[in-house]
C-alpha cells in the first residue's frame, strides 16, 4: 500500500472518524501498530460509511493511502464474516455434542427428510470488485494487498482478471470466484454478458473504482456506468466506492457511484457520501526562468535544455513530462547529445514496444534512472520509485492535469512535491503563469460530466441480450439508473434497440436478418449463439488509431524488395506508429523514433520497414500539437493576465517587452472580447483572431472561416492555428473589404456557421470519418475482429468511409451519425467549445486594421509552412500534382 513512513493523523472534513475509531477491529488496530502507522481519518470515514451501507467517493492526493482506504471495509467485513462463520460452526458443533450427550437427535437442516428440502440459494463468494483503467494497476494492487492479508492471517482470496489472464483461469473464475477480484471495465462487461453473471455477482457487496476521475471522462466510463447499473440490479445494496484525484465537480462522481431515479422527479438527488482527505504540504512549484532568448513559436524548449539537464543532474530521479510522442523523442535525443556526465536518462511513451516500456519502469523502480522523458503514458499508474522532481516541458494545458503530474513526484504526503514548468515559447509563458496561479488557488478544470454515448449503449444492449432475454421496459429503467444515461429518452433507447436488432434503418430491409428478436413473451433475445460470440470478440470502447508495427531491417535488403515485400527480413521490432503518420511519408524519408533517426523503406502489410539512417537532421513530422487542448479555465486565466498589465511584473522581461510592443502597435485582447487583426505582409493579406480556445476548436473555426471568406470572394489560401490564435491568409485585402462594407466581421463570426457550413464541411472531413469509424466499431456495426482472425484496422478504415458517405446521403439522422456528431462536439473538432466562444463574443469583436504585422501574431504566423495547408483542398492538390507531373514531363 502506498502508505509509507509514520504518517501523521491527518485532519479530515468529517469528525465521524473520531467517533468511529473503535470501528476498526483489534486485529487491524494491531496491524497498523506493528507497521508503525496510525489509521488515517479518511480511512476510518470510509469504514464508517461502509458500515452504514453507503456508497462513498474518496478524494485524496497521491500518497494518502487511498487504495488501503478503499479496501479496508472489505478486509474488515471479510475477516469478521469469516470469524463469525467459524464461531457459528463451533457453536453448532458444541450444541450437537451436548444434544448427543442428552440422547436427543440434533435438529439440523441435514436431518430433515430429503423430500421437503429446498437447496439453499447458491451464493457466490465474490465480495468485492476492484476496477482500474490500467491492467498493470490491477496487478500491482493485487501484489500490495498480499501484505496486509498475509500479515493479519486473513482467509481472503484475491485474484486478478485481465486480457492477459489465461483462458483456463478465466473459466475457473466464473465457476469458483475469489473473494476479491481485481479487473478492468472490459472484463466486467464480458462477465455481465455471460450466463453466469447472475450467480457470479449474487453476493457482491462492493465495487471499488480506482482513478475514477480518469475513467469517467471517456466512453469507457459510459460502459462502466452501464455495467454498474446491471451489477446493482443483480446485487441490490451494492456499495460503490470511488477513489479519485481532486476534480472540479465532485458531485458528478458522487452521482456516478449510485443508482439514479430519473423516473421519480420528487426523489431526492442520489449522491454517494463524500470524504475528502486533506492534502499534505503544498507543492513547491516554479517556472524555469531561462536566461536564453525565448523563442517565438517553438514547441521544444530547446533553448532551456541545458538548464533542464542541470536540474536532472541535481536530483535523484526526474520525470520530464512532454505533451506529444514526438516531443519526447526529440528531447530525449537532445538531452543525450549534451549528456557529458553520461546520466542514465530513459524514454517512455505509449508507442514504444511494451517490453521496452517495462524495462524502463523496472529500472525506475530500482532507482537506476536519473531521468525519464515521458508523455501522458506515465500520468496514471503505479508508484515507480523515488521520483523527487517533475519537469513539465511546454504548457501544462490544464491545471488539474498539472496537479496530477506534480503528484507523481514524491509520494510522501507530508513533504512538498517539487515541480518545474518550462515554457517553450512566449505564449506558453503566459499559460504557465496562469497555471501557477491556478494551482496555488487549487483551481480545477477536469472535463464536465459526460452524456452517455449511444454507440456504447448499443454495445451494452447486445451484451445484455447475450446474458439473458431482456424486457425493454426493465432495461430502459436500469440504463437510466446509470448517471450518464439518466436523461436518456425512451425514443433514443428504442432506437438503440432497433439499431442492435436490424441496423436502425428507415428502409426496413433487414427484419429477417435481425440479431435480436422479440419472443412471444415480449422479451428480446439473441437470434443465434454466433452473435454472442461475435459480441465477446468486439467488447470494449477503446478503438485504437490504426497502429503499424515498426520493424528495423537492413537498408539494402529493403530497397531491393520495394513495396511488394515478397522478402521478409526479420529485424527487431521497435514499436508502433499511427497510420496517419506513415501515410504522408514516401520511401527515403527520415524520422525520429525510439530514440533513433530512421529511414522509411517500405510498408509490408501492417508493418513499416525502417533502416538506421546516418542523416543528422531527420525530416521531422509537423508538430501535431498536444493531445490535450488548452483548457477553458486556463484560457480565461491567460486572457485575464493579458488584460491586466499591472500583473505583468511576474513575467520575464522578454515577454513583458513583447506585450508592451503589442499594446503600442495594435491592442491587447480583452478579457471578454475577440481581437481580430487584419494586415498585409509581403503581398499576402492576413486575418488573425485570438480566441484562446485551443487548437482543435481553432482548426474547426479556421475551416469554417475559410469557406465563408471564399464565398465572400476574398480568395483565402489557407489558415494555421495554435492553442491561442488562428490566422487566415488570402489574396484579397480584408482590411479594405471591411472598410468598404463588403465584409462584416460580425457576420463572418456569426454562430450560424455551425449550421449549414459545418454540415457541408463535416461531409468531407477526414476527422469526422475517423470519429464515425470509432462509433461504428463500438456500436458493433463493424467487427473489429473475427473469430480466429483479427481484422486489421486498415481494412476497417476503408469500408467505414464508404459507409459514412452512403449513410449520410440517405439517412443523415441515423443513430450512428448522431453518435458521431455528439463525439465531434467534444472530441477532435471541439464544436461545442467553438459554439460557446461564438456566443460569448457576439457583438464584442474588436477589429484592428494594421499597416504591418502585429507582435502578438508572430507566433501563429511562424506556424505557416510548418503545418500543411489547412482545409480539405484535395481537389486543388490533385490538380497541382497533375501540373507538377506535366511540367516535369515537359522538362
Amino acid at each position, binding site marked *: 500500500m502506498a502508505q509509507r513512513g509514520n504518517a501523521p493523523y491527518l485532519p479530515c472534513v468529517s469528525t465521524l472518524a473520531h467517533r468511529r475509531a473503535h470501528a476498526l477491529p483489534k486485529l487491524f488496530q494491531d496491524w497498523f501498530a506493528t507497521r508503525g502507522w496510525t489509521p488515517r481519518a479518511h480511512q476510518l470515514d470510509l469504514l464508517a460509511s461502509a458500515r452504514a451501507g453507503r456508497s462513498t467517493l474518496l478524494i485524496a492526493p497521491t500518497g494518502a493511502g487511498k487504495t488501503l482506504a478503499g479496501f479496508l471495509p472489505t478486509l474488515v467485513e471479510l475477516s469478521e464474516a469469516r470469524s463469525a462463520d467459524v464461531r457459528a460452526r463451533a457453536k453448532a458443533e458444541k450444541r450437537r455434542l451436548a444434544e448427543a450427550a442428552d440422547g436427543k437427535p440434533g435438529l439440523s437442516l441435514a436431518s430433515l427428510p430429503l423430500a421437503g428440502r429446498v437447496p439453499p440459494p447458491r451464493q457466490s463468494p465474490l465480495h468485492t470488485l476492484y476496477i482500474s483503467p490500467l491492467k498493470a494497476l490491477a496487478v500491482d494492487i493485487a501484489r500490495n494487498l498480499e501484505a496486509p492479508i498475509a500479515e493479519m492471517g486473513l482467509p481472503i482470496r484475491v485474484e486478478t482478471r485481465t486480457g492477459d489472464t489465461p483462458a483456463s483461469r478465466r473459466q475457473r473464475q466464473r465457476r469458483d470466484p475469489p473473494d476479491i477480484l481485481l479487473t478492468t471495465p472490459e472484463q466486467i462487461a464480458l462477465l455481465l454478458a455471460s450466463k453466469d453473471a447472475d450467480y457470479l455477482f449474487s453476493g457482491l457487496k462492493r465495487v471499488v473504482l480506482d482513478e475514477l476521475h480518469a475513467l469517467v471522462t471517456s466512453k469507457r466510463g459510459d460502459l462502466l456506468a452501464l455495467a454498474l447499473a446491471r451489477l446493482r440490479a443483480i446485487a441490490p445494496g451494492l456499495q460503490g466506492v470511488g477513489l479519485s484525484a481532486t476534480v472540479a465537480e465532485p458531485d458528478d462522481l458522487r452521482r456516478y457511484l449510485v443508482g439514479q431515479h430519473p423516473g421519480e422527479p420528487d426523489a431526492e438527488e442520489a449522491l454517494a457520501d463524500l470524504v475528502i482527505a486533506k492534502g499534505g504540504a503544498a507543492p513547491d512549484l516554479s517556472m524555469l526562468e531561462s536566461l536564453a532568448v525565448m523563442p517565438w513559436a517553438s514547441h521544444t524548449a530547446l533553448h532551456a535544455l541545458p538548464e533542464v539537464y542541470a536540474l536532472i543532474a541535481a536530483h535523484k530521479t526526474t520525470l520530464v513530462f512532454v505533451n506529444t510522442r514526438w516531443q519526447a523523442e526529440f528531447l530525449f535525443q537532445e538531452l543525450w547529445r549534451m549528456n557529458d556526465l553520461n546520466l542514465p536518462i530513459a524514454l517512455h511513451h505509449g508507442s514504444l514496444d511494451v517490453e521496452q516500456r517495462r524495462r524502463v519502469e523496472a529500472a525506475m523502480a530500482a532507482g537506476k534512472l536519473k531521468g525519464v522523458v515521458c508523455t501522458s503514458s506515465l500520468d496514471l499508474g503505479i508508484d515507480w520509485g523515488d521520483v523527487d522532481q517533475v519537469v513539465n516541458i511546454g504548457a501544462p494545458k490544464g491545471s488539474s492535469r498539472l496537479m496530477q503530474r506534480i503528484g507523481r513526484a514524491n509520494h510522501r504526503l507530508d513533504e512538498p512535491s517539487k515541480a518545474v514548468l518550462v515554457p517553450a515559447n512566449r505564449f506558453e509563458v503566459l499559460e504557465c503563469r496562469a497555471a501557477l496561479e491556478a494551482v496555488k488557488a487549487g483551481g480545477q478544470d477536469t472535463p464536465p460530466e459526460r452524456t452517455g454515448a449511444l454507440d456504447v449503449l448499443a454495445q451494452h444492449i447486445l451484451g445484455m441480450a447475450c446474458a439473458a432475454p431482456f424486457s425493454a421496459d426493465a432495461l430502459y429503467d436500469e440504463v437510466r439508473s446509470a448517471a450518464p444515461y439518466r436523461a436518456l429518452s425512451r425514443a433514443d433507447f428504442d432506437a438503440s434497440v432497433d*439499431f442492435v436488432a*436490424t*441496423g*436502425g*434503418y428507415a*428502409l426496413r*430491409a*433487414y427484419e429477417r*436478418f435481425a*440479431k435480436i428478436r422479440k419472443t412471444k413473451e415480449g422479451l428480446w433475445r439473441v437470434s443465434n449463439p*454466433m*452473435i454472442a460470440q*461475435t459480441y465477446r470478440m468486439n467488447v470494449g470502447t477503446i478503438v485504437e488509431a490504426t497502429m503499424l508495427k515498426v520493424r528495423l531491417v537492413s537498408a539494402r535488403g529493403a530497397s531491393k524488395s520495394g*513495396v*511488394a515485400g515478397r522478402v521478409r527480413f526479420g529485424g527487431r521490432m521497435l514499436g508502433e506508429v499511427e497510420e*496517419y503518420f506513415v*501515410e*504522408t*511519408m*514516401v520511401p527515403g524519408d527520415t524520422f525520429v523514433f525510439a530514440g533513433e533517426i530512421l529511414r522509411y523503406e517500405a*510498408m509490408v502489410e501492417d508493418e513499416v520497414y525502417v533502416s538506421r539512417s546516418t542523416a543528422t537532421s531527420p525530416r521531422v513530422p*509537423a508538430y501535431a500539437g498536444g493531445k490535450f487542448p488548452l483548457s477553458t479555465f486556463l484560457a480565461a486565466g491567460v486572457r485575464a493576465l493579458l488584460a491586466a498589465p499591472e500583473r505583468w511584473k511576474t513575467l520575464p522581461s522578454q515577454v513583458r517587452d513583447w506585450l508592451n510592443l503589442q499594446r503600442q502597435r495594435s491592442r491587447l485582447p480583452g478579457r471578454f472580447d475577440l481581437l481580430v487583426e487584419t494586415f498585409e505582409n509581403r503581398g499576402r493579406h492576413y486575418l488573425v483572431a485570438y480566441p484562446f480556445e485551443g487548437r482543435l476548436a481553432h482548426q474547426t473555426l479556421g475551416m469554417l472561416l475559410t469557406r465563408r471568406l*471564399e464565398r465572400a470572394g476574398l480568395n483565402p489560401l489557407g489558415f494555421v492555428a495554435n492553442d491561442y490564435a488562428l490566422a487566415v491568409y488570402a489574396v484579397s485585402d480584408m482590411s479594405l473589404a471591411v472598410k468598404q462594407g463588403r465584409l462584416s466581421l460580425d457576420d463572418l463570426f456569426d454562430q450560424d456557421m455551425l449550421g449549414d457550413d459545418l454540415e457541408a464541411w463535416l461531409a468531407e472531413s477526414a476527422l469526422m470519418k475517423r470519429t464515425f469509424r470509432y462509433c461504428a466499431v463500438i456500436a458493433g*456495426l*463493424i*467487427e473489429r475482429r473475427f473469430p480466429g482472425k483479427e481484422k486489421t484496422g*486498415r*481494412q476497417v478504415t*476503408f*469500408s467505414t468511409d*464508404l*459507409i459514412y*458517405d*452512403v*449513410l449520410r*446521403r*440517405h*439517412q443523415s439522422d*441515423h443513430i450512428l451519425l448522431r453518435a458521431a456528431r455528439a463525439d465531434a462536439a467534444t472530441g477532435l473538432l471541439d464544436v461545442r467549445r467553438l459554439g460557446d466562444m461564438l456566443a460569448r463574443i457576439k457583438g464584442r469583436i474588436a477589429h484592428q486594421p494594421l499597416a504591418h504585422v502585429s507582435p502578438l501574431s508572430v507566433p501563429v504566423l511562424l506556424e505557416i509552412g510548418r503545418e*500543411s*495547408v489547412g482545409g480539405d*483542398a*484535395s*481537389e*486543388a*492538390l*490533385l*490538380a*497541382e*500534382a*497533375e501540373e507538377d*507531373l506535366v511540367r516535369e*514531363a515537359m522538362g
Partner: protein
Amino acid sequence: MLARADSVPPSFVGLAGAELVLDRRGALAWPERGVLAVADLHLEKASAFARRGQMLPPYDSADTLARLEALIARWAPALVIALGDTLHDRWAQERIAPQTRDRLAALQRGRSFIWIAGNHDPEPNALLEGEWAREIRIGPLTFRHEPLPGEVTGEVAGHLHPVARLVQRGHSIRRRCFATDGMRMVLPALGSLTGGLNVRHPAVSGLFGGRYEAHMLGTARTYRIAADACLGD
C-alpha cells in the same frame, strides 16, 4: 472554386485507336459508338453482409443506381455495357427492394444492355434483363470482366477496383481511378460500397508491361497521374 460538374469539356483519351471519354463519376463513354461502359456495381452488397449479421446501410444499390442514372442522362448511350460483378451475389434479387428493382427496369427502357458475367455473377440473373455475355468485341475494343494476362490490344475490363494514392504537400489523397497504358483500360468500381486495390499492387502493375497511368476521379473531372508517381498503400 470548383467548376460545375459538367461544365468541364470532356477530354478524350485513346485506346487502341478508339477515342474515349473518362467520366469523373467512374464510367467510360465512347460517344462515336453511343456506348457507355461501367464496372463492378456490386448491387445489394450491404444486404449480403446483413444476412451474416453485419447490418450495413441498405442504401448502396439506390446510391449506385443514382450514379448510373446520372451517367445515362449525361451520355444518352444506345448501349450500356456492364463489365461484370453487377450483382454482389446470386441471391441479390431476393433481397433487392421493389423500388430499386423498378428503377433498374426504368433505366433499361429505350436502350440496350449487355451484362458481362463476373465472378460474383457468373450466370445470367432474372434481375438483369438483356443480353448476357462472357465478352464482347466492338470495333477495336474487347469488353470483358477480368483483364487477360499478357499483351492485349484494346481491352476494357473491370474486376480489380483500382485506386490510386498520392501525397501532395503532406496530404494523402486516395481516389478511385482508371488504369491505362493506351492498350488496356481497367475501370474503377461504380458500386458505392466497393473497396479498392492500389494501382501499384502487383495484380494491377503486372498487367501493364511498361508505363501506365492512373486517371483519378475528382468532383469535376479526372486527374491524369503517371503510375510511377503514385504511392502504395
